[in-house]
């Protein structure tokens, strides 16, 4: 008994000693040996599964860097970045001009992966994937197309017997990047949508019921006949939902897939502005899936703390190179090569006290 007690005491004291040493090390992290750095990030929920994977994988190769990511939502991520309570933010939609102006320093957008929003439905007896033109989707979500056998739906789905039942539209209840991407797409393809509803994280839906989260929308679509809704691609694949093909601007009906999403980014690369803030919905490529979008990590161009800044750019560099290989298994689309190059340039432009960190 007394032996184990003293062992425990020794263990306790050595743990305490270690703690003191590690705190001391933290204090002078400019020391070039093995500095231990801790980074805080917060933001978008959509890429959270991937970022958590990145953090655990990166931690294996760089045990001296500790990174935490809180998936509190894109809005919260931007807010915390502006208030400088985190080292990096994350957002599905790029920051707005006024948000960039309000930030205390220049903010860089580093794209990490791509996601897509898919149209799912519950229609008894319909086996083949339904096909939708963008205008038809807009009209359904505007409440103008009310029945499943509407001639406009039938026109895209020759050979499919559509029931004469009412369409029940299911939307996302809470503010989300998924809704933002979807309404951004609808605003581009339908002037009426743009005028009446617009694009944003919490639009005022003209019709339908709203479910909370991807699981809420899925639950309502799965359990209610004659429904149509939208969820993230990753969620739809994992839950084996029926997925509709959507007509892109080249006129092809595209099955949402990881490759079709990367193709959308690739096709838009030419028109992507220098700051990489871009919406790639309704992209032009023949194989591009039209309801796709980037998700970003947001960092300040001028880092206050050189050690932290160095750890941050190293992590980002690792993410857009080594990290991309974890994307597909988690149903995210990796960045196309030319965008990786441009993201590299962004990462390389990060400085601390005027000197480049990479």
């Amino acid at each position, binding site marked *: 008994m007394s032996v184990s007690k003293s062992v425990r005491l020794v263990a306790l004291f050595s743990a305490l000693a270690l703690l003191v040493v590690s705190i001391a090390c933290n204090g002078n992290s400019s020391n070039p040996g093995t500095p231990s750095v801790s980074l805080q990030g917060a933001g978008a929920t959509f890429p959270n599964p991937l970022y958590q994977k990145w953090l655990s994988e990166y931690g294996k190769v760089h045990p001296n860097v500790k990174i935490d990511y809180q998936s509190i939502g894109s809005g919260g991520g931007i807010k915390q970045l502006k208030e400088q309570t985190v080292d990096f933010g994350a957002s599905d939609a790029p920051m707005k001009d006024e948000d960039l102006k309000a930030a205390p320093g220049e903010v860089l957008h580093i794209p990490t992966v791509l996601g897509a929003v898919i149209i799912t439905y519950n229609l008894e007896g319909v086996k083949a994937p339904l096909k939708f033109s963008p205008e038809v989707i807009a009209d359904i979500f505007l409440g103008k197309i009310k029945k499943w056998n509407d001639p406009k739906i039938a026109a895209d789905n020759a050979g499919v017997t559509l029931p004469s039942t*009412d369409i*029940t539209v299911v939307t996302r209840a809470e503010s989300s990047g998924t809704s933002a991407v979807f309404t951004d797409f609808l605003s581009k393809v339908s002037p009426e949508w743009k005028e009446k509803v617009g694009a944003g994280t*919490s639009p005022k839906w003209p019709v339908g019921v709203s*479910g909370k989260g991807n*699981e809420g929308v899925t639950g309502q679509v799965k359990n209610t006949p004659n429904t149509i809704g939208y969820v993230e691609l990753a969620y739809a694949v994992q839950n084996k939902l029926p997925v509709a093909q959507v007509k892109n601007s080249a006129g092809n009906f595209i099955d949402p897939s990881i490759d079709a999403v990367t193709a959308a980014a690739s096709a838009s690369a030419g028109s992507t502005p220098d700051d990489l803030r871009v919406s790639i919905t309704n992209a032009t490529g023949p194989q591009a899936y039209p309801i796709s979008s980037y998700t970003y990590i947001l960092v300040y161009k001028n880092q206050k703390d050189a050690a932290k800044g160095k750890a941050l750019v190293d992590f980002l560099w690792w993410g857009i190179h080594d990290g991309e290989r974890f994307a597909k298994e988690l149903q995210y689309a990796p960045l196309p090569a030319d965008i990786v190059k441009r993201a590299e340039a962004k990462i390389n432009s990060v400085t601390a006290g005027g000197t480049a960190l990479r």
Partner: protein
Amino acid sequence: MSWATDTRAGLAGQGSTWRRVLSPTGNTGDAVFRVLMLLVALLMIGIVLAMVAALTADSMTSIRQFGFHFLTGQNWDPIKGEFGALAFVYGTIASSLIALLISVPFSLGIAIFLVEQAPHYIARPVGFLVELLAAIPSVVYGLWGIFVLAPVLRQYVEPPLAAVFGWLPLFRGTITGIGLLTGGIILAIMVTPIVSAVVRDVLAAVPGSQREAALALGATKWEMIRVVLVNGAPGIAGAVILGLGRALGETMAVTMVIGNRPQISLSLFEPSYTIASAIANEFTEATGDLHLSALVELGLILFLVTFVVNGIARVLVWNVTRKTGGVGRAA
């Protein structure tokens, strides 16, 4: 210093010096205890006031922009920056009332059964199971609502309701299984364990002599139970108020089945939206200052709604207890 006057009033006739007020028994320990308890009580009031102040301060942007129209407007459009709370207030009150209408008779039945009729070996496990319902996280209720309750209502409950009572505007509209009625039923299930547990304790506290007196006068079992219920009326009303508070503030379970659509519709089948759900759903991704401020103002309104509804309930209770001649005060 008003608390001192209050205390003094409460101890009228016992003298008026500070020492006596703080410690009528002349014991220092008592004095310390009194002051401590007073501080705790004041802290509670302070917290409530601080919350109201903080909510008001943070909603100033929205209050300035919309003024009273915030309360009367029905349009909630974050993209266009237009905010009106009326549909949320309606959804909150309507879903809570439906919940109470369903849950109170059930709760009374459960409590009467457990106290007056069930043998001990049944009363204990049943009581335990009912209380267990209160421990289930609300998100579980919500998921159960989507996957079990909503389909059942859509297939077996709402169509007959529409067929029989379709002449009432309450039971018209598209049947999806998601909407005000489903939200109210989920709330009813969540409120029932709380109300029934409190009512059971209230009924158990009614003295046995009351029952014996009723039976001795030749009352049937049912008449005896009525005597017990009348005696317990204030406590039962308190239980209902407690349930109402729970229903007004419930967020997660409701949002999963109510359809989350800010609209005022007489139909129980139509989707609706509650204040608490709206705040929970929109707060995380609200970026604009006006949107955030409007959400905080919604919180302030929920506070007021709870306050007013509780107030009305208390006045009702007070009236009822005076008429029935029940003893004691509302919980």
